[in-house]
């Protein structure tokens, strides 16, 4: 029913790589609810470009290291 997104993310790995940052801590730094961080991590919600950049800034990495999009197979 809900069209699944093809966007994948490395949020969980990045959180663990950055001193086991919890979902709640990341949510506080982004100014969103913890449930939104969970939804993004599980691919249930695609954040706005604005929030995507904010997430990348929290981890100090380029956007492509947080979110990935598979190449079109033609």
């Amino acid at each position, binding site marked *: 029913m809900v069209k699944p997104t093809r966007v994948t993310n490395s949020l969980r790995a990045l959180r663990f790589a950055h001193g086991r940052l919890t979902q709640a801590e990341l949510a506080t730094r982004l100014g*969103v609810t913890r*449930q939104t961080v969970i939804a993004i991590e599980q691919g249930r919600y695609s*954040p706005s470009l604005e929030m995507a950049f904010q997430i990348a800034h929290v981890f100090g990495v380029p956007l492509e290291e947080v979110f990935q999009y598979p190449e079109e197979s033609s």
Partner: protein
Amino acid sequence: MSRNFDMMSGLFYLDEVTHEEKRTWILGIAAVVSYAVYLVIVLGRAGARPLAEVPYVATLLWTVGASIAATIVLSIVVAVVSKDGAKDERDREIGRFGEYVGHSFVVIGAVAALLLAMAEAPHFWIANAVYLAFTLSAILGSVARIFAYRKGFQPW
């Protein structure tokens, strides 16, 4: 043991729900309950006479008023009891999506009321068509929001 587990999973579920999702549940349930109470009272009053002659205005106003009051009070209680964060972009987008879904029923209600008025139908049916459409709009909008929260939501 299993009862404790059920209670724990229930509490866990509440913890996993944002304030806006709890508010959506409250809104949806209040709409269903108030309309059910209204129907029971009005239909119970009908007896042998035609429905269009049943007094309904005061009941309609009271049930709508009670529904609004209950929603406000319960939302405040939930906000005080739970330590949820403020509304964020996902809440706002899901809220808009719910409004969009519920809107169709408001239009259907308006068209139904227009047609009934043009056909010079009794006021009872015009008012009740509009009330039913508002209720269905609230219910459908709430269900769409809860689905978006639970099953996922892509804004595009």
